[in-house]
């Protein structure tokens, strides 16, 4: 049986990442960014094997969908990203400014190798869920390429740590993590009653019209909600991620069963506070309206997109302001 590139990458990640989590730390412990001279190199383990990269890269190309925002959380500039023009309004002003001057080197899932070479990166970074081995090989002809995998698609903790190691900014990553952990624990303690008194769900639009989706703990936001914040999902929510997408799509006729007992519904909204029409359609459906969360009005849209420790901390801040604080009164 021939495995798909995505499956191969996922399997490779599952096997290799636990190994390189150890070895990468060892690499980082060697020539650290602040101590190494310009022109030095370090060897890092990646999903596709060991790669020699500059110890202090100066021209970073981030070519997966979430990778630029993860690099942004290290305060490292990027010289090239995929084109976000069509989605740009859904990003914050800070994010828009961050990619404004970067070369646009293709679109989601379709890298323009010529444009990427023209950006003259000294390192290319991305994740294994969008970059298969064949693409990695082509990218490696342009510049040293580090493809990270994490344990699953939404494992932003491991993904960012591996990226930080490859970019020689592990210290910055560690500080962001430290700040995040402190804020997370503070909020969990302060609002422990609200958190434990409620049953939660994070829903969004589905794959087809007439469907809705649930963000699973294997996805970025679901990971933060369930694993990090300890918000308990409703018992009717299936947590298996059979597709490996980090979410699962269901028919609207299942919404009563799946969200049964859920007392707080979280969903996504745009930075300007508007809701995507497809999500609004789910909320407006008669089956959603007969749910407890609709009757109590406890449905909240959050606009922060979770990709790293810094954005996770911002998400917690938004959750606190919009949800936990009002519910605590």
């Amino acid at each position: 049986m021939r495995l798909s590139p995505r499956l191969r990458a996922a399997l490779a990640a599952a096997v290799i990442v636990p190994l390189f989590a150890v070895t990468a730390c060892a690499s980082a412990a060697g020539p650290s960014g602040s101590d190494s001279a310009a022109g030095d190199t370090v060897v890092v383990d990646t999903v596709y094997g060991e790669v020699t990269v500059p110890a202090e890269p100066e021209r970073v190309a981030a070519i997966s969908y979430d990778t630029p925002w993860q690099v942004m959380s290290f305060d490292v500039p990027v010289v090239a990203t995929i084109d976000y023009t069509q989605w740009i309004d859904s990003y914050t002003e800070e994010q828009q400014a961050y990619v404004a001057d970067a070369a646009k080197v293709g679109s989601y899932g379709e890298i323009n190798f010529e444009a990427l070479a023209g950006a003259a990166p000294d390192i290319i970074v991305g994740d294994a869920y969008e970059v298969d081995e064949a693409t990695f090989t082509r990218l490696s002809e342009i510049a040293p390429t580090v493809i990270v995998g994490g344990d699953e698609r939404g494992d932003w903790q491991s993904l960012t740590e591996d990226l930080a190691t490859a970019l020689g900014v592990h210290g910055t990553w560690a500080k962001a993590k430290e700040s995040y952990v402190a804020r997370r624990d503070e909020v969990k303690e302060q609002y422990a009653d609200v958190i434990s008194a409620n049953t939660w769900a994070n829903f969004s639009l589905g794959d087809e019209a007439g469907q809705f989706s649930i963000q699973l703990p294997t996805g970025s936001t679901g990971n933060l909600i369930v694993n990090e914040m300890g918000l308990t999902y409703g018992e009717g929510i299936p947590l298996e991620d059979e597709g490996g997408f980090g979410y699962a799509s269901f028919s609207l006729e299942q919404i009563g069963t799946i969200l049964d007992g859920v007392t707080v519904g979280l969903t996504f909204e745009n930075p300007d506070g508007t809701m995507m029409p497809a999500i609004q359609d789910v909320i407006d459906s008669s089956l959603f309206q007969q749910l407890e969360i609709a009757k109590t009005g406890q449905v909240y849209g959050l606009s922060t997109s979770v990709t790293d420790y810094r954005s996770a901390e911002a998400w917690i801040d938004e959750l606190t302001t919009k949800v936990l604080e009002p519910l605590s009164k």
Partner: protein
Amino acid sequence: MTALATDGRRRARRPSDAIVLPIVLLLLIIAIGVSIAVGPRTLSFDELLAALTAPTGTEADLIVRDVRLPRTFIGIAAGSALAVAGVIMQTLTRNPLAEPGLLGVNAGASLAVAVAIVVLGVGDFGSTMWFAFAGAAIASALVALIGGVGRGASIGRLALTGVAVAAVLSAATSALSLIDPASYQQMRLWGAGALGGRSLEAATLAIAVVGIGLLLVVVIAPGIGLLALGEDTARALGGRVGAVRTGGFIAIAVLCGAATAAAGPIAFVGLLVPHALRAVFGPDTRRLLIYSVLAGPLLLLFADALGGVLIAPRSIPVGVMTAFLGAPVLVALVLSRRVQAEGAPS
């Protein structure tokens, strides 16, 4: 089933309507029953009956009336519309490959709906339907003008023109849907070709509009039957060729526009159903039209049910399912000697 005719040639013996019609009707009733009764959420017979006859606003009532009934109605409307449009197109163009999806009609309707959603911010079915009519009509005219007239007119040229126009229109739809992320999400959900996500009111409207289109077909059906014999023969027998062509053109635009606005672009129904029926009933246009009204929904509801179980708990959009089923038929048709030699449905 063949019989020896008086001229010595073997002729196919066609099954009687008295036998086939009840069977097809029974199959359609079963398909409708399955579509309403079976879904991801299991409902008891009592719940189903109560939802259909005396709804009181329970969850089961909402599932049946707001999810399953609209889905079934859209399947019936789109299936009938696309299958009948396929028969008319194949007869009018005398081209066995003519089909709303292949000849760019659905793509024209799709682009028009995209314009309505992205440029004008119109998203409800009642409004987008008018755009779909216009898009279907313009695309039909464009394909007919480029590929169906002049000395070089041929089956291949018309089909290739349709494919080319469909590709251009689909590309324009994609480009348009990428302009605005919010619209993109709406287009993404609609563009795969799916029966779900419509309200009961929209589904009822789709049924009504398709019904009007079918009434028009009833009016022009005798003329279409004559046209199937060839234009000269039709004229010699008193047929009003121009009026029938115009009526057929309007019927195609109404049927394909309504189907596309309701369910998104669904291809191959207009190819699969007429050819399957032709294999059973032969070239009798009257029977093809009647049975298309029944067999189109049967195919679409079957494909939808199959798409719901093949990779459960995920589902495959019905537009993808019909493509899976229709592509092999298209290849077989293209390779068949009959199409190459005769070039028209007999």
